C-alpha cells in the first residue's frame, strides 16, 4: 500500500478514540461502559481537509519586573569600567550611570552598594585603595545626578573578586570596574 502514512494516522486516531472511551468509563462509573469499537481499516485515503486554523499567537518578552534588581541589571546596566590605575569615569560609562541615576530616582526606596574592583596587575593593599576610589567615583557621579548619598554605600574588593578569572588584557579590562549592587528596596 502506498498509503502507509495515512494508515498510521488512522490507527492513531482510533487509539485516541479508545482512550477517550476509557476515560469516559472511568468518569461515569454508574453507567455501563460503551462497547469499544474500532474503526474499520480504510482502503482509501481520507479526504484531506485542512483543520480549522486557530488565531496566530504572538509572543513578546515583557522583561523583568520594573523596579526589580533584574530590571536594573538587564535594562540599565549595573557595571561600568575603568582604565588602568585610573578612577576617572569614562565617556562610555556616563550613559550607564545616567541611566542608573534615572532608575534610582524612579525607585526611591532602593539603596545600593558600589563595589570597586581592580585587576590583578597591582599589589593587594594599593588595589584596595584604588578600588575604593573607583567606587567613590561612581558614587559621586550618582550623587551629582541627584541621588541622595545616604542611599549609596561603597566598598572596595580590590583585586579579590575578579569578574573574569582569566589573565590578559581582556580579563583585566573587565575586572577594572565599579559594580552597583542593589542591597534593599527593589521589587
Amino acid at each position, binding site marked *: 500500500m502506498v498509503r502507509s502514512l495515512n494508515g498510521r494516522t488512522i490507527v492513531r486516531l482510533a487509539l485516541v478514540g479508545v482512550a477517550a472511551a476509557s476515560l469516559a468509563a472511568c468518569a461515569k462509573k454508574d453507567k455501563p461502559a460503551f462497547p469499544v469499537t474500532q474503526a474499520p481499516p480504510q482502503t482509501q485515503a481520507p479526504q484531506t481537509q485542512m483543520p480549522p486554523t486557530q488565531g496566530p499567537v504572538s509572543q513578546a518578552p515583557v522583561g523583568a519586573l520594573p523596579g526589580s534588581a533584574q530590571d536594573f541589571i538587564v535594562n540599565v546596566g549595573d557595571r561600568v569600567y575603568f582604565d588602568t590605575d585610573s578612577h576617572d569615569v569614562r565617556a562610555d560609562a556616563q550613559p550607564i550611570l545616567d541611566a542608573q541615576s534615572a532608575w534610582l530616582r524612579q525607585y526611591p526606596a532602593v539603596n545600593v552598594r558600589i563595589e570597586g574592583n581592580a585587576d*590583578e596587575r597591582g599589589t*593587594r*593593599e594599593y588595589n*584596595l*585603595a584604588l578600588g*575604593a*576610589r573607583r567606587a567613590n567615583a561612581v558614587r559621586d557621579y550618582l550623587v551629582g545626578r541627584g541621588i541622595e548619598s545616604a542611599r549609596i554605600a561603597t566598598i572596595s574588593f580590590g583585586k*579579590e573578586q575578579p569578574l573574569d578569572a582569566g*589573565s590578559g588584557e581582556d580579563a583585566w579590562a573587565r575586572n577594572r570596574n565599579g559594580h552597583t549592587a542593589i542591597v534593599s528596596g527593589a521589587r
Partner: protein
Amino acid sequence: MRINAFIAALALALGALVGGLPAQAQEGVGVSVTRGDVQPLPIAVPAFGGGQVGADIAQVVAANLQRSGLFRPLDPASFIEKDLTPAVQPRFADWKQINAQALVSGMVRVEGNQLRVDLRLWDVQYERQMIGQQFTSSPENWRRVAHKISDAVYERLTGEKGYFDTRVVFVAESGARGKTIKRLAIMDQDGANPSYLTSGDSIVMTPRFSPTSQEITYMALRPDSATVYLYNLQSGRRESLGAFQGMVFAPRFSPDGAKVVFSVERGGNTDLYLMDLASRSSRRLTTDPGIDVSGSFSPDGARIAFTSDRAGSAQIYVMGADGGGARRISGGGGSYTTPVWSPTGEFIAFTKQTGGEFHIGVMRPDGSDERLLTTSYLDEGPTWAPNGRVLMFSRETPGGPPKLWSVDVTGRILQPMPYPGAGSDPAWSPLLN
C-alpha cells in the same frame, strides 16, 4: 674553602648588611668571592645517635642549612666514619677526605617526657670544636629542637642570627579563581605543621606578625564591611581594632608591638592612621588627597615607610612616625608598593611593577642602592626573616594560583617554599623563645 674564609667571604658578599666582619672572620685566609657569590660551605650532618628521632633531627637540620643556600650538606653515603657521637673526637682525617669543612654530631636521648640532644659542631680543618651544647625539650617538640640546633650552627658559622625556629602566617587559598576561599594559616618556616586559623567565611588578607609576640594583625573583607583584627596565637583571643567611618585595611605593628599603623579610606581618599593598642586612641598621620597605604615602621620606631600616589604613580615615601617630613625615596620608572623595613634597619623591601613585570627588590632607606631580586609575571608582598637575610613573597603565573617563594637578600638564592599548597601574603614571625 675553609670556614674562616667562608665567613669572611659571606661578610664581603653581604656588604654592609652584617655591619662589619664577624669576629670569627678576622683570622680568615683564602678569601674567594666570585661575582659577589658565596660558595656554599660543605658540611657533614650525619644522623644523630638515638634511633629514628636522631635521624629525623639531623635531616631537618641538613634541610634547613641547605635551603639557606649558604651550606652544602654532603651525601651521607660518602661518610667514612660511622656511628660518630658527641662523646668522642671525630677522626678528622676521614672528614677531610670527603672535603667536609664543618661537621655536626649529635646524640638524642628520650627519658620519660624529656628529649635531650647533645650537640657538637667541629671545624674539620682546624680540628677544633666550635659548639658544645645540650638541648632539652619534650619528645613531641623534636622539630623545634632541630630548628634550634640549625640556628646555633648557622649563627656560629655565619656570624649572624639564625631564622629557622620561626613560623610563617599566610593566606591559604583554595577554589577556582574569582571564587577563591581564603583562610589564614600558619606553618613552620620549613613548611611543616601547617594548620588553619580561620574558617574561610570571609576574605582574609595581609596578616602581619608582631615583632615582639605571637600576635598577628590582619584584615577581613566581607561584602559590606572591612575589619582589621588582632589575633593572639597563644590565647586564641581575637578582637577587632574597632569600628571606623570608612574602610580600614593594611595594618602593621610597630617594632615594640604596642601600636598598629593602618589605612582608613573615606570618600575615596586613603590615609595612614596610628593606633595605640593600650589606650585604643588613634590619630591620623597623613592628610593629602592621594592614596597613602602600607605603612611599615623602621626597627627603631622613629620612621614609617609607606606607599603613596600623591605625585601621580605609586611610590615609596618615608616620614617621621608622627606623620611629619614625608620624603619620596623611590625614583626609578614604574610603580613601587608594599614597602617593608628590614629588621636590621638597613633595607626597605618593596614590590616594583614595570613593563608588565613584577619584582621584589630592596633599597636603602634613603632610596639608594636599589636592587631587584626577582622578576616574574606577578611577585608581591615581601616579608623579612627576623635576621634580615631572607625574604618570602608570593608568586603567580598567569591564571595560576599564588605560591610562596623565598629569595635571599643578595638575590642569589631564589626558591619555592616547601609548602605545596596555594598561598599568598606570607608574614614571617620573630624568632620563637
